[in-house]
C-alpha cells in the first residue's frame, strides 16, 4: 500500500517530558484523516514531527514515501498551522506571492494559481487589501489558500475552521472534499468534532501521545444499534423485543437493541403497532463522534 503517511513508534521527549510516546499510524493517499485528542495529547508535536519541524527522539516515519524532513517531499505538502499569524503589512496577493516563491512555483504559473485560489476561498475582492484589515475568518481562508498553492499531495490542516463563520466552514469543507476527489490526503486536526464527522474518512484518537483507537467514519457495521422511544415500556416488552435482536436494554428513557440487519427496523415497528404500543421514535442509533471521543478519552476529555 502506498501511504501518504506511515509512522512507526514515533516518540518525542523534551527533557523529561514525553510529548509523544508511541505514535504508529498510516494515512492512505486520498484519505481525509482526523487526528483527535484532548489538549496536551501530543497532536501538535506529532504534526511537527511529520513536517520535519521537530526531530523525533526515536522511531521513524515516511511522509509521501520519503523520510521525515525531506525537502522534495515537503514541496508536495501543504500546511495550515494553528493560530497562524501573518505578515499583516502585506496584502493578500503579496502574501500568496511570497509563498508561491518559497514553494518554487514559476512566476507565470503562480499568478494563475493565486487568482484561482483567491476565488476559491472567496477573497478575490480583498486581494489588494492589507492582511491587517482582514477579519479572523478571512485570515484563516488566506492561510488555507497558501497551503494549497503548491497543489499538494498531502495537506496538514491544524484547526482550519477556527474562527470561521458557517459560510467559511462550508468553504473549508468543500475544499477538503475537492482535495479528496483529487486524491490528496488531508490530515485534519480539529476540536470541532461535528466538522470532523462530516469531512473525515477515518479518525484516530490520541491520548498521552499514542493512538488509542482508530475508526472508520464510512464503514458499515454488521451490527445496527436500534433506538426506540415508546409510551409505556415494560419488562415484558423488553423480553419480547429479544426476538428481533440481542442486548436489549433501557438507556436514558429509550430502548436500545442490536440487530444484524437494518431491515428489521420496519418489522419491529409493525410488531409494536400490532401490540398496541405507541411508538414515538424508531431508528438506527449511530454513536456520534463526540460520544466516541468521550468514551475513549474518559475523564481526560472532560478535564481538557
Amino acid at each position, binding site marked *: 500500500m502506498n501511504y501518504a503517511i506511515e509512522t512507526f513508534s514515533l516518540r518525542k521527549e*523534551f527533557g523529561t517530558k514525553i510529548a509523544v510516546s508511541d505514535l504508529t499510524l498510516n494515512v492512505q493517499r486520498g484519505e481525509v484523516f482526523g487526528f483527535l485528542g484532548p489538549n496536551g495529547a501530543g497532536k501538535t508535536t506529532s504534526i*511537527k514531527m511529520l*513536517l*520535519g*519541524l*521537530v*526531530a523525533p527522539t526515536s522511531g521513524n516515519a515516511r511522509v509521501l514515501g520519503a523520510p521525515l524532513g525531506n*525537502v*522534495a517531499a*515537503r*514541496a508536495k*505538502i501543504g*500546511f495550515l*498551522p494553528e*493560530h*497562524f*499569524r*501573518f*505578515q499583516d*503589512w*502585506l496584502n493578500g496577493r*503579496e502574501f500568496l*506571492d*511570497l*509563498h508561491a*516563491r*518559497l*514553494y*518554487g512555483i514559476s512566476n507565470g504559473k503562480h499568478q494563475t494559481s493565486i487568482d484561482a485560489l483567491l476565488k476559491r476561498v472567496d477573497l478575490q475582492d480583498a486581494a489588494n487589501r492589507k492582511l491587517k484589515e482582514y477579519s479572523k475568518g478571512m485570515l484563516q481562508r488566506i492561510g488555507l489558500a497558501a497551503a494549497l498553492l*503548491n497543489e499538494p499531495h498531502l495537506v496538514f490542516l491544524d484547526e482550519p475552521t477556527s474562527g470561521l463563520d458557517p459560510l467559511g466552514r462550508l468553504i473549508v469543507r468543500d475544499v477538503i472534499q475537492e482535495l479528496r476527489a483529487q486524491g490528496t490526503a488531508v490530515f485534519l486536526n480539529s476540536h470541532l468534532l461535528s466538522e470532523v464527522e462530516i469531512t473525515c474518512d477515518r479518525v484516530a484518537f490520541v491520548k498521552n501521545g499514542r493512538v488509542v483507537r482508530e475508526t472508520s467514519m464510512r464503514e458499515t457495521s454488521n451490527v445496527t444499534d436500534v433506538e426506540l422511544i415508546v409510551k409505556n415500556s415494560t419488562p415484558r416488552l423488553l423480553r419480547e423485543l429479544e426476538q428481533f435482536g440481542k442486548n436489549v436494554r433501557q438507556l436514558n428513557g429509550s430502548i436500545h437493541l442490536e440487530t444484524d440487519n437494518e431491515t428489521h427496523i420496519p418489522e419491529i415497528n409493525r410488531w409494536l403497532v400490532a401490540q398496541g404500543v405507541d411508538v414515538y421514535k424508531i431508528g438506527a442509533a449511530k454513536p456520534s463522534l463526540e460520544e466516541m471521543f468521550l468514551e475513549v478519552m474518559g475523564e481526560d476529555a472532560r478535564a481538557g
Partner: protein
Amino acid sequence: MKAFAVALQVEFIKLRRTLAFWMMFIAPLGIVALTVFFDLRLGADVSGANTDAWSTLLRDTIGFWVVLMLPLFVALESALLAQLEHSQKMWKHLLALPTWRGAFYIAKLSMNILLVGFATLILFGGIVLAGWLLQIFNLRPDFHWGVPNPSWSVAATTVLFVFLLSWGMTALQTYVSMRWASFTVALGIGILGSISAFVFVRSVALAQFVPWLLPFNALEPYIKQSATLGVPLLVSLLCTILFTAFGMWELNTRDVA
C-alpha cells in the same frame, strides 16, 4: 543557490513597509544631521582658511557613525529582521516549506549586510549632500570648501572598508537575534557592544579585535593612529564565518516551537 535566491527575494518582500527598511534611511541621515549641527555650532576645526571642511565633515560623520550609531544600528536591524519570524511565530510555517533551512539563515544575514551596506552608502551620499547644501546656503562663510584632503577616492575607500569591517558584528548580531526570540537579548548585546566600542575606541590594539569596533579602523586616513587594516579585516571575516556557521547549525538542528 536557487533556494538562497528565493529566500533572499522573500526577505525583500517581507521588508516592505517595515521599520527595518525605514531605519536604513533614518539612522545614517540622522547622524549626518547631528554632525552638521555639531560642526555648525561648535566646529572650530571646520572654520578657518587653513582647514578643510570636507575632510572634517567626512571624519566627524563617519566617526560618529562607526562608534555611536553603527553597532546599535546593526543590533536593531538584526533584531527587527529576526522578529519578522519570531514575533509572528512564523518559523513553524517557514521551515515547513520546501527550502533548505540554511538558505533562510544566509538570506537573513545577507539582507542584514545589504541594509548596512545601503545605510553606509546613504551616509556617504548624505555627507556630500550636506556639504553641498552648506556651501549653497553659505551658513558659515568661514568654512573652507576646497578639494578634500584625503581625496574623494580615499573617502570612498574608507566607506567601503567601514562596510566590510562591519560584517563581523553583523554576523554576530544576526546569530544572537536568530538564536534568541527575545528582542531584549539582541538589543542588549548590541548596547553592550556599543558601550565596548565607545570605551575601547582609544585603544589601537583592542580596536583590531572587538567586533563592534572593527569599522573604526577604516578611519585611519583621517585619524592617523598607525593602524593597519589587515588584522581587522581578517577578524571581521573570521567572525562572519564563525557566527554564520554557528547560526546555520543552530537553525538546522532547531526543534521549532
